[in-house]
C-alpha cells in the first residue's frame, strides 16, 4: 500500500484510451465501474476534443457482482459493435474488473464478432499509463500489421503520437517536414491519425521513426523483428538532436542528409547579447524520460544553463536517464512521488525548473520560474497555435517558452539597481507577466479553483484604493466580502464601490453589497 497525493501517470487503461482516442475506426470496450468514465474528461476538457473518446464502459454496479457482470460485458460488446461498427475493437478491464476476473478477452473471442477484437492484459496494480499505451499499441500492431511489399518511394511510419500527448499534434507535422525535405514520404502515422486498416499496411514502410519511446518502443522492436523495419533512436528535440536525427535517418534510408535551417532561430537567439543573462542559470529538469533527457541537452548545450538535477517518473526509462545524469555529473531523481520531487527541488534551490504541470505548482509555491516540457500537462498546454517541440520550429519554441518565465536580460539589471523600488521588488516577477508574483507557501493553499469553475482567476484582487477613495466599508460588509471566493472578491469589491458611488452612498453595508450584487446580476 502506498500513500499517494498526486500522480504523474494514470492507470494503464488510460494509456489504452490514449491510443484508442488517437486512432480512427477503433473502439475500446472497457469493463469498469461508472466512476471510471471520468477519464473521458481528460480528452474532452483538457485536450478540448470535440468528440467523445471511442470508449464504452460496462459500468457494472455492486448488485451485478457475482451474478451477471460477465453477461453485462457480453451485451455491452455486442451493442457497441452494432452502434459504432468499428473496423476493430480492443477489450479489457480496469482495476476493479481485473479483480473480478471475468476475462473480457476470452468472452470476446467466444462471441466472435466479424471484426478483429484484440484483448488487452494491463496489470493495473503494477503498471501505469505509459505502459498501458505502449502495450496497447504493440498488441494492435501485432494483431493487424503484416509484412508487405515496400513502397516504391522510400517511406517511413511515424510511431508513438497519441491523444493527450504533449504537443504530439504539432510534432507530427514537424517530423513530416524533416523527412519530406530528404525525399522520404510518410506511410502511416500511428496510433494518432491511423485506422486499423492503416495499421495493417504499416509493413510497407522502409523504416520507423520512433517519436516517443514511452508509447511505441515495444511496437518498434516487434516491427524490427517481424517486418524487418529498423527504427530511429534519436528523438529530434533541440538543434543538436534534430541534426543527429537527420544524420541517422539519412543512414537508415541511404539518402543524403539534408536539413533546411533557414527557419532555425534558436542558435542566434542564444548567442545574441540579451541572452548573456542565461549563462549558468541553474535548472532542475523533470518529466517523462524522453523529454527530460532531450531537455538536458538543450539546456546545457544550446541555452548555456547549468543542469543541477535531472529526473523522470517513468521507471521504463530509468536506466538511460541514470546514464545521462551521470554524464552530466548530477544525481538522477527517479520517482513518481510528487513530494519527493518537491524535496529535491527545495534542496537544490534551482533558478529555474523545466518540468510538468506538477513542477509548475512546486515552482509557484517556491517562487521558482518553471517552463513545462513534458506530460502531464493541463489545458493551457494544448495551445491553439502551432507549437511543436521537435524539429526546427520545435527548437524555436523551446527557446521562447523556456525564456518566457524568466526576467529578461536588461530588466534583470534594472531589478538589481532598483531592488527596493516598490514596482521592482524581487517578488514582483517578470514585467511581462501580469500578477505572477510567487505565491507564499502556505497553510494547505488558498481555496481551490475547481476544474469547472466559471470564475476568472485572472482577476486579481486590487489592494490599492483606486475606487474606494471616498466610500467606507463597514466592518460587517468587509467581513461579508471576505467570505466571497478570493477569485471573484476583487471584482465584487470594485462593483460594490462603483455601485455605491453611483447611488451616492458613502458607507457600504452588507445590504449595499447585496444590492450591488443584484444590480450587476447577469
Amino acid at each position, binding site marked *: 500500500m502506498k500513500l499517494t497525493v*498526486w500522480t504523474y501517470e494514470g492507470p494503464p487503461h488510460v494509456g489504452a484510451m490514449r491510443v484508442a482516442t488517437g486512432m*480512427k475506426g477503433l473502439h475500446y470496450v472497457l469493463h469498469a465501474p461508472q466512476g471510471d468514465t471520468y477519464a473521458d474528461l481528460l480528452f474532452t476538457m483538457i485536450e478540448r476534443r*470535440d*468528440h467523445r473518446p471511442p470508449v464504452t464502459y460496462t459500468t457494472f454496479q455492486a448488485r451485478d457482482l457475482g451474478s451477471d457482470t460477465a453477461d453485462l460485458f457480453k451485451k455491452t460488446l455486442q451493442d457497441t459493435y452494432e452502434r459504432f461498427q468499428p473496423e476493430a475493437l480492443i477489450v479489457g478491464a480496469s482495476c476493479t474488473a481485473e479483480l473480478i476476473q471475468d476475462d473480457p478477452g476470452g468472452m470476446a473471442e467466444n462471441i466472435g464478432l466479424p471484426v478483429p477484437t484484440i484483448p488487452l492484459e494491463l496489470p493495473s496494480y503494477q503498471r501505469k499509463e505509459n505502459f498501458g499505451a505502449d502495450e496497447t499499441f504493440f498488441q494492435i500492431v501485432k494483431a493487424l500489421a503484416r509484412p508487405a511489399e515496400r513502397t516504391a518511394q522510400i517511406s517511413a511510419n511515424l510511431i508513438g503520437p497519441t491523444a493527450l500527448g504533449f504537443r504530439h499534434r504539432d510534432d507530427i507535422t514537424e517530423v*513530416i517536414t524533416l523527412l519530406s525535405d530528404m525525399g522520404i514520404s510518410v506511410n502511416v502515422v500511428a496510433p494518432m491519425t491511423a485506422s486499423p486498416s492503416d495499421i495493417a499496411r504499416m509493413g510497407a514502410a522502409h523504416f520507423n521513426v520512433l517519436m516517443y519511446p514511452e508509447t511505441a518502443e515495444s511496437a518498434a522492436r516487434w516491427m524490427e523483428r517481424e517486418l524487418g523495419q529498423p527504427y530511429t533512436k534519436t528523438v529530434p528535440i533541440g538543434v543538436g538532436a534534430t541534426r543527429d536525427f537527420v544524420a541517422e535517418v539519412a543512414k537508415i534510408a541511404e539518402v543524403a542528409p539534408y536539413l533546411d535551417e533557414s527557419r532555425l532561430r534558436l542558435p542566434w537567439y542564444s548567442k545574441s547579447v540579451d541572452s548573456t543573462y542565461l549563462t549558468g542559470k541553474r535548472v532542475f529538469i523533470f518529466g517523462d524520460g524522453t523529454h527530460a533527457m532531450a531537455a538536458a541537452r538543450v539546456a546545457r548545450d544550446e541555452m548555456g544553463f547549468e543542469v543541477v538535477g535531472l529526473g523522470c517518473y517513468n521507471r521504463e526509462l530509468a536506466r538511460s536517464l541514470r546514464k545521462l545524469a551521470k554524464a552530466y555529473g548530477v544525481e538522477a531523481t527517479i520517482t513518481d512521488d510528487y513530494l519527493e520531487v518537491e524535496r529535491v527541488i527545495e534542496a537544490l534551490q534551482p533558478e529555474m525548473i523545466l518540468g510538468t504541470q506538477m513542477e509548475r505548482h512546486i515552482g509557484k509555491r517556491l517562487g521558482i520560474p518553471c517552463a513545462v516540457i513534458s506530460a502531464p500537462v493541463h489545458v493551457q498546454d494544448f495551445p491553439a497555435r502551432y507549437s511543436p517541440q521537435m524539429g526546427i520550429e520545435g527548437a524555436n519554441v523551446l527557446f521562447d517558452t523556456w525564456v518566457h518565465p524568466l526576467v529578461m536580460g536588461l530588466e534583470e539589471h534594472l531589478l538589481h539597481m532598483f531592488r527596493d523600488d516598490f514596482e521592482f521588488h524581487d517578488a514582483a516577477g517578470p514585467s511581462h507577466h501580469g500578477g505572477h508574483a510567487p505565491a507564499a507557501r502556505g497553510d494547505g493553499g488558498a481555496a*481551490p479553483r475547481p476544474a469547472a469553475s466559471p470564475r476568472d482567476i485572472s482577476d486579481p484582487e486590487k489592494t490599492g484604493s483606486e475606487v474606494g477613495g471616498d466610500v467606507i466599508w463597514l466592518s460587517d460588509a468587509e467581513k461579508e466580502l471576505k467570505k466571497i471566493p478570493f477569485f471573484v472578491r476583487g471584482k465584487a469589491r470594485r462593483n460594490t464601490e462603483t455601485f455605491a458611488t453611483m447611488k451616492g452612498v458613502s458607507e457600504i453595508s452588507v445590504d449595499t453589497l447585496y444590492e450591488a450584487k443584484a444590480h450587476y*446580476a447577469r
Partner: protein
Amino acid sequence: MTELAPPPQSTGCRNAPILKQRGQREVFCGLTGIIWLHRKMQDAFFLVVGSRTCAHLLQSAAGVMIFAEPRFGTAILEETDLAGLADAQLELDRVVDELLARRPDIRQLFLVGSCPSEVIKLDLARAAERMTERHAPSVRVLNFSGSGIETTFTQGEDACLASMVPVLPATDERQLLLVGALPDVVEEQALSLLAQMGVSARVLPAPRADSDLGIGENTLFALTQPFLGDTHAALERRGARHIPAPFPFGEEGTTAWLRAIGHEFGVDEDIFARATEAPRARARKAIAQASDALRGKSIFFFPDSQLEIPLARFLTRECGMEAVEVGAPFIHKGIVGPDLDLLPEVPTLSEGQDVDLQLDRCRAARPDLTVCGLGLANPLEAEGLATKWAIELVFTPVHFYEQAGDLAGLFSRPIRRADMLALDGSAASPGQKYPGGLGSGPHAGRP
C-alpha cells in the same frame, strides 16, 4: 408580500411516469465529493483506500489544483495487498500512523472505500473502529464508501454525512439542524435569515470535529441538498424529524424552504415577512435580469448531481424555461417530492441512464441548453448544442436569495455566449484535413 403560497392544485410531476434505462452511465463516483468536503471540514483528512484510478479521478476532478499538501490522499493497493487480506489491514495501520504523525492537525480521519477495496472485501468499518481506539482521543476515525459500484457522484457526500450521524452525542434540546455542505458564504446567509426569523440552527457537517453538535428526538432537520437520502435515513434513526420542503434554489424555493421551517417553529407571518421581504425583492430583480436570455428556451438534463429536479423547478417556474427531459441518477420522492409537486409536466422524467440512447434523445430534441457532465459537454457543443457543465453547480455558491441571480446566470451565460459569437460560416470547422494530408486530424470526427 405575506401571502402563504396556496397548496399546489395539481400534483405536478410527483406521479408522472419515470423512464428507467439501464446501460452505460456517464457519471463520476462518490469519491468526487471529497474535493469539496475536505475544504469544508477543516480538520478532516480523507484517505481513499483504492487504486491508481481512484487517485487519478480525484486529481482530474480537482482540476489538478495542487495544494501544498491537500487533506486527501489515496492509499493505493498493490499486488502484495491483494494477495492476503490480513496484510492489507496491517498496511493500512502503517499508512495511517505515518499520515497522522505527519499531520498532527488532523482530528477526523475518513477511510473512504472504493471499488477495489469493496471487491476484495477489505473491512474498513473494522479498521476505523480499531484506529479510533488506537488514536483516541485526538483523532476520530470513520469510514464510508465513495465507490463507483455503490455511489454516484454526490452520493459520496451523502455517505460521508451519514457516517457521522451515529457518533453524534445525544441531546434532547429542541433544535434545528441544517444538513448539507455549503460554501461558507451561503451557509452564513442561511443562518442569518433564520436568525432574523428568530430560529437558531446548527449545521452538519460542522467545520470542526470538536463542535458540540448533538442530536435526538427534539431535533428537526432541513436538507440543503437533495442528494442526502442516506443521511436523511440515518438522522431519522436517531429520532430526528425531517422538514420536507422544496430546495432553496431561487426566490420561490428559498421562500418555501424558509416558510416550512418557520411553520414548524411557529414564526409568525409578520416576522417572516420582515426577514424575507428585502432579500426576496432583490432575488426577484436579479433573476429577472439574469433570466432574460432563458425565457422560452428549452433545457435537457443529463443525470449527474441529483440537483436536476429542484433546478428544473427553478428554471421552469422562475426563469421561464421549458424542460424537455429531466434526468436524475436517482429520484427519492421523500426528498424531492415537494419540488416534483411544483414542477410543470415535462415530456420525459428519467432515472438512471443509457448514455447512448439518451444522447439520441437529446440530439432529436435539440434543446437550447443541455446540462451534462464534462465528458459530454464539448462533444455536444461541437454538434451545435449549448451546454452547461453540471459539476459547476456543486462547486459554485447557488443556494438562497442572494445567489438566485447567479444561479440563473450560470444557465444564461452559455446561451448568451452562443448568441454573441460570430464564428460560424468561417472556414475553420472541425474535420479539416490534417497537415501533411494524412486523413483527418486528431480532433476530426470519427465514423
